[in-house]
């Protein structure tokens, strides 16, 4: 401490505020932590790179060009489905990792005790983390929508000379656009809740990130296992159980709402036919359980880290 300033001079300059925990301040603090992690930017760079490659492949080729020329509606629906799958997958990985790391790093680094020792309530902090993650997710979604819209505009204008083939699409196309946006928002919310819950349960980065990332592959693979079990045992119970898996239900959500045209999910879907109400209930129950587990565990457990 060889360059320490004269304590009295500095300390006397400090006025005496009456600080109180601020929710907005806590959200700003969490956003600063999200921005400060190099991994966040690496994942966003990966999202951009994969999106560029995927969008490039989607809008290139004569087949796609012919589809736009002869059936703009099908072209648009295919485009929507491709970007929704791309966004749900990439933003899912991004949000699962960022949310589980944001929460678990507080425990594994011990910073949770520094934050809570300032009078910030445990649930206050958890709420701020969830809001900061939601804001981050919305920023990523907005940027993704902007890039996809710009790409669509550039491709359509380049191939057709104007954007009219898209602007003249029937109302159902715009309804489906909003449905896709809603599904993307739901998917983001579920990923944030899942990542947060895994971190709160495990209180370590390894467990939090590992459990969060393993969940969807596990229940997508579980669908294959259930199908196999059904064939081996001839028991429908496996199919009935499978309809309550979260991942397949999320994959099915868009298709269950968009009834005007056939939508094929990119990943596993429930082995029995489910409707939109079933999907909403399953997703709602999982979300409630994730949130309740996070709240109760955060509230009840001592901070020993």
């Amino acid at each position, binding site marked *: *401490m*060889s*360059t*320490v*300033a004269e*304590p*009295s001079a*500095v*300390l*006397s*300059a*400090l*006025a*005496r*505020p*009456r*600080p*109180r*925990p*601020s929710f*907005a*301040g*806590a959200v*700003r*603090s969490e956003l*600063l*932590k999200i921005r*400060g*992690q*190099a991994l966040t930017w690496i994942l966003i760079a990966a999202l951009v790179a994969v999106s560029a490659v995927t969008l490039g492949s989607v809008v290139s080729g004569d087949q796609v060009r012919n589809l736009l020329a002869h059936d703009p509606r099908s072209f648009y629906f295919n485009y929507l489905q491709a970007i929704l799958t791309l966004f749900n997958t990439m933003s899912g990985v991004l949000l699962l990792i960022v949310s589980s790391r944001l929460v678990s*790093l507080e425990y594994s*680094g*011990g*910073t*949770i*005790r*520094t*934050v*809570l*020792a*300032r*009078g*910030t*309530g445990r649930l*206050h902090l958890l709420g701020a983390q969830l809001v900061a993650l939601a804001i981050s997710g919305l920023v990523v979604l907005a940027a993704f929508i902007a890039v996809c819209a710009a790409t669509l505009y550039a491709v359509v204008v380049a191939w057709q000379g104007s954007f009219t083939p898209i602007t003249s699409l029937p109302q159902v196309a715009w309804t489906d656009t909003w449905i896709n946006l809603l599904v993307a928002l739901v998917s983001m919310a579920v990923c944030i809740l899942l990542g947060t819950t895994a971190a709160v349960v495990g209180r370590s980065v390894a467990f939090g990130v590992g459990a969060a990332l393993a969940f969807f592959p596990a229940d997508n693979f579980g669908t294959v296992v259930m199908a196999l079990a059904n064939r081996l045992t001839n028991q429908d119970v496996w199919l009935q159980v499978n309809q309550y898996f979260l991942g397949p239900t999320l994959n099915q959500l868009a298709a269950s709402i968009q009834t005007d045209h056939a939508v094929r999910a990119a990943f596993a879907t429930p082995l029995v036919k489910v409707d939109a109400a079933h999907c909403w209930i399953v997703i709602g129950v999982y979300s409630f359980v994730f949130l309740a587990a996070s709240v109760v565990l955060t509230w009840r457990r*001592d*901070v*020993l880290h």
Partner: protein
Amino acid sequence: MTDTVLSTHRLSKSYGSREAVKGIDVEVRRGEVFGFLGPNGAGKTTTIRMALGLIRPTGGRVDVLGRDVQTHGGEVLPRVGALVEAPALYGYLSGRDNLKAFASVLGGVPRSRLDDVMELVGLSGRQRDKVKAYSLGMKQRLGVAAALLHDPELLLLDEPANGLDPAGIVEMRDLLRELAAMGKTVFISSHVLAEVQQICDRVAIINLGELVRVAPVADLLAGHGEFVVKVEDPAAALALIQGHEWGRSARLENGVVVTPSPSGRGRDLVQFLAAAGMWPDLLRRRQQNLEEIFLSLTGNNDGAVS
């Protein structure tokens, strides 16, 4: 405004069947530098964590600035600065961003204050560097800076000298004295007993979760009532003294007799020896250092103090 800024009332904490803290009653007064000492596993950190609302007591309560910290933590803890164990910081953020992150949680901290506290702990030149590149001593100083951000009335510091070099320890001591002089209350847990002896007004010593002693440092150092006596024939003097009930603990140390006095006063000891024809060449009250007192009170002879 209450004169007691921190008090524990029959404070207990159990983990399963193990009692980490057993009904501790401690009172810290406004403006004093209070030392909290105990060997490893004594319950110091558990007590500090309960004072900060990080863990819930099994029994009793902690009042901070006059309010129960479990029910009014949001009201009183913003007026407390804390450094618990090793400094917990965001390694991926710069030193300045760490302070911004902590400051934002409570809000109302102007940017100039970040500079002020950085300067105060001697980190102005490194504030843009990532904390993961900091040495332990620098992290410790940044932890103290974070504790001082909101100009707290009470500072709870767990091993603040950890990782500091000798010059840093001296500067930390000066800083704590300066803070105390400004009327801040400092509650410090340290294993550097010589430091505690130099800066604390009072100390509490706990062992195995129980409070062993709370006393002003000056009383503790002088309070054993023993005298160092130099006489011509120390062996004979020792035998004479040990022949009395009050002198059973007398002993020889380096050729001098270390003994209690019949009344606790030096002149009565002189009179006793003189009556036996053993006029002392030298008699003075024995000054123990805090480490010796600590070890005698806790029965911890390996010097492992935390």
